[in-house]
């Protein structure tokens, strides 16, 4: 029996070398290049097939369009790594959008205050998800399924009969164009990545997701940490919601529907385990970019939304299949 170096398959997205930051970055890159290559390939296909696709504007708009869902998906990545699941982020998204809309359009609060309260709302709803799970010991799927339904009701009640539109110019800057959302997306991804790999709480996410009982017996405060991860999920959902409201310049309670599924799709396309303990945020971003490139590319080629749906469905399965296959092959 030869000595094994099978570790590479299992640590794909957990940087193992902590010695130097350059090493870590290189390591990260080595793990990501295949997904990046897939993204590049898909981009090239559309580049060849569709002349109007060949502009810088298009490239930027792909980033811009992907950024909002990618931010949401960063939160989902953290929650999934910790062995949790949050089906309610789409509804949190709706509530936060409506709340910020009300604060801006009805109470005319300063932008920074409205944004701050919006983020706080997301954090609070995330905390509620976490606390309910920890206190009641009801599985995440159920608690957040309840949240999915209930928060949507809350958003509707808050919005009913209100005209939430025409926000201050200052607020509109947040989500308009490609630059700001993209910048925020990369910022959020970087911070989330540092959080996961460099901090105590971030490392505990892998431990809890890997084996909750061992983590507990090792003295990790599992309950408290879990609540934090859901709060991060809520915070990211809120950030995404604020950007979308700013971008569209009006708020509606019907927003965010099924976003949780898109986020989960991007996360798993990126290679984070659905069952916790493994994963990283870098590939989540690429996962979202892959989905968005396909949507935009197909739209540029004049393909209707129904066929786009079929393509996205197929891509979700294919991407994970490719990952499964690659791991088996070693």
């Amino acid at each position, binding site marked *: 029996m030869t000595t*094994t170096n*099978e*570790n590479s398959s*299992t*640590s794909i997205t*957990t940087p*193992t*070398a*902590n*010695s130097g930051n350059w090493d870590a970055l290189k390591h990260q890159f080595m793990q990501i290049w295949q997904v990046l290559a897939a993204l590049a390939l898909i981009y090239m296909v559309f580049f060849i097939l569709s002349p109007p696709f060949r502009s810088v504007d298009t490239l930027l708009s792909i980033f811009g369009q992907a950024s909002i869902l990618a931010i949401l998906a960063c939160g989902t990545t953290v929650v999934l790594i910790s062995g949790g699941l949050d089906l309610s982020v789409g509804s949190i998204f709706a509530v936060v959008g409506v709340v910020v809309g009300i604060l801006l359009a009805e109470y005319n609060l300063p932008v920074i205050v409205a944004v701050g309260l919006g983020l706080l709302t997301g954090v609070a709803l995330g905390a509620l998800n976490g606390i309910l799970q920890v206190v009641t010991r009801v599985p995440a799927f159920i608690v957040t399924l309840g949240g999915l339904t209930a928060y949507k009701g809350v958003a509707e009640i808050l919005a009913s009969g209100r005209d939430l539109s025409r926000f201050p110019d200052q607020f509109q800057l947040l989500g308009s164009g490609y630059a700001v959302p993209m910048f925020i997306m990369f910022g959020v991804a970087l911070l989330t990545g540092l*959080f996961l790999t*460099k*901090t*105590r*709480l971030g*490392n*505990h996410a*892998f*431990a809890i*997701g*890997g*084996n909750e*009982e*061992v*983590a*507990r*017996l*090792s*003295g*990790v*405060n599992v309950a408290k940490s879990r609540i934090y991860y859901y709060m991060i999920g809520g915070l990211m959902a809120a950030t995404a919601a604020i950007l979308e409201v700013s971008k569209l310049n009006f708020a509606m309670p019907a927003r965010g529907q099924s976003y949780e599924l898109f986020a989960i799709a991007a996360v798993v396309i990126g290679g984070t385990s659905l069952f916790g*303990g*493994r994963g990283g945020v870098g590939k989540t971003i690429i996962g979202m970019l892959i989905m968005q490139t396909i949507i935009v590319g197909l739209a540029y080629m004049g393909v209707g939304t129904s066929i786009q749906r079929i393509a996205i469905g197929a891509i979700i399965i294919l991407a994970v299949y490719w990952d499964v296959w690659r791991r088996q092959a070693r």
Partner: protein
Amino acid sequence: MTSAGIPKIILEAKGISKHYGGVKAIDDVSIDLREGEVLAIVGDNGAGKSTLVKAITGALAKTSGTIFLDGKEVRIDSPTDAKAAGMETVYQDLALVNELSITKNVFLGREIVRKDILGRIFGALDFKTMDAEIRTLFEKLDIRIADIYRDAQSFSGGQRQAVALSKTVMFGKRIAILDEPTAALGVRESKMAMDLVRSLKDHGLSVIMITHNMQHVLNYCDRVAVLRLGQLSAVRDVKDVDGDTLVGLITGTIDTKAA
């Protein structure tokens, strides 16, 4: 070597019970651990050994019972309390997280954070120091694992158990509690693990060890406590018993009250 003069009692567990509804997993068990000894706990499957240890270390909420450390009553309601009191435990089947590196596993729950603001505010970890401490420790304990960055699951059972035991030396200031440290280990790995257990004494620890291996009791332990059907049925000095007596005590063919 066992008890020089009057043996000092370091840990005393009094009247520990753990009931699951009508099921009395352990019922009014009292044991004590003397300074510097290795105390074996033996008994049939389901006798309540793991439950006893978990109740003592706060991993399970006990139905009743009191813990004394150095004669003073202490509250131990969670694994964190136990660790704070200087007890380090390796639980049966629950030693390592497969997905974490060796470094992260050893320091899990007690990570070293950086001394700068990043560490103080964000809990940024000081991997350099942790790695260095582990290398020192492994050298001291003669554990030959070079690649401490690899995930725990890629190591063999023996290596995994060695890592788990090393935690008791790293953090167990006074007491190490081990639940079947050699179960499912091969001959060689078992010996390695038991040598480690013996060296715990040299590092100043008192040890409680659950085992099904009578040879290990006779060769490595000072005293042995026997659990039967959730109750303490005997406590003996190892030098006063042989294998057959032990088996008799465990299976109940020798019937005695606790010494």
